[in-house]
């Protein structure tokens, strides 16, 4: 059996273990949260280096892929450098392929419809998904500035998202990661109602679930949510809010959908193909990895 671990900057409260079958191979997945402590995360990676088949970085991206350009978050570079033997991946290769295809499939299957309005709570970390929405004719609002920095400015197109990313990311990726994204206990910060109207105005809400959880209103009647890393409690909360459909972009294992980094680590462990190589897209395609779709009845 292959064994992969996910070392996350998120809370250790969400630690768990599960197994999955991928391309006919069983893979054991163990998740370890470092509660936002970079040094502890580095120590965990060093401890498991050479003892597992791949390591995923959770709660942090290493690469932000904007079209043909990749920006590297420096704290993630340091984390990855803690391993000298085992490959370390961050999920960006899955996001750029699987999430894009998830949107195309939902559109093809008629679950979502061109012309609907989409709120992506963050899109610089999921440019493939944003681009898919844009190309299929959805009205996109990207909330990167709103939810990451509390700047009440909706990014209104993929083109504007790309322009802002190219201006901001070369510098912002050099900042301590905790300034860019909630880590550890900050992920459990209370609800923030300042921007709920962006959720109310959208037909589809997509992206990082920590942002969705923190900023969503109590009521989201008829909305479609496209996200991952949801737990059973998260699913229940969305059902109570009146959400019509919850789509996870990664498979659900043991009632929780795993992060993209976990799926990427599992694929690397099984195939030996790394995300930055030409065969990666074929590997993702062959894996037939899909998320799940949960339809809620009216409450």
């Amino acid at each position, binding site marked *: 059996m292959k064994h992969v671990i996910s070392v996350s900057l998120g809370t250790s409260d969400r630690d768990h273990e599960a197994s999955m079958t991928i391309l006919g191979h069983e893979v054991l997945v163990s998740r370890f949260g470092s509660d936002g402590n970079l040094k502890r995360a580095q120590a965990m990676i060093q401890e498991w280096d050479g003892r597992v088949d791949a390591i995923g970085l959770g709660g942090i991206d290493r690469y932000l892929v904007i079209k043909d350009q990749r920006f590297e978050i420096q704290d993630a570079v340091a984390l990855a450098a803690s391993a000298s033997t085992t490959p370390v991946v961050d999920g960006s290769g899955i996001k750029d392929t699987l999430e894009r295809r998830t949107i195309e499939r939902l559109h093809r299957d008629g679950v979502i419809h061109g012309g609907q309005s989409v709120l992506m709570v963050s899109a610089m970390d999921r440019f493939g998904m944003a681009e898919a929405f844009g190309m299929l004719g959805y009205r996109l609002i990207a909330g990167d500035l709103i939810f990451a920095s*509390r700047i009440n400015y909706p990014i209104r197109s993929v083109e504007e998202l790309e322009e802002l990313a190219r*201006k901001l990311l*070369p510098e912002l990726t050099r*900042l301590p990661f905790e300034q860019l994204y909630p880590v550890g206990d900050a992920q459990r910060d209370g609800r923030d109602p300042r921007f709920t109207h962006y959720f109310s105005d959208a037909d589809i809400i997509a992206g990082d679930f920590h942002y969705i959880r923190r900023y969503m209103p109590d009521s989201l009647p008829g909305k479609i949510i496209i996200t991952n890393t949801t737990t059973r409690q998260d699913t229940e909360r969305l059902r109570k809010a009146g959400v019509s459909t919850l789509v996870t972009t990664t498979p659900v294992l043991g009632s929780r959908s795993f992060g993209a980094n976990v799926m990427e680590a599992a694929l690397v462990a099984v195939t030996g193909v790394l995300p930055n190589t030409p065969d990666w897209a074929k590997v993702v395609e062959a894996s037939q990895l899909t998320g799940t779709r949960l339809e809620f009845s009216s409450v």
Partner: protein
Amino acid sequence: MTLMQALSQFCNECNSNARLREMNRDWNRRVLLNPDNVDSPHYLISENGEVSAGQGSVDNPDLVIEASDTILTSVFSGRMTPTEPYNAGDLLVRGHQDDIMRLDILTLLIWGD
């Protein structure tokens, strides 16, 4: 270029840019810039989307930025990004993290890329 000239340029860039005005429409803050090598404080005031600057101190600042006047002038004229002196410990900022990040983002949107 003096610090006051750099701040005036920064204000002009903010106020003539529709996107930045929209971003700042609800950001009402007082920013004190304290050069740590000369006794010559300056300030920025953002109110209803309009940013203004002046020489002297300001009461009850929301944000205090300390660095040499050379670094402050370089940052607010776009010759240096804030990240470089910040990461090196040559630029100290006291205030709410969101306000610090917003100033970073404003400077990058004016002079980034």
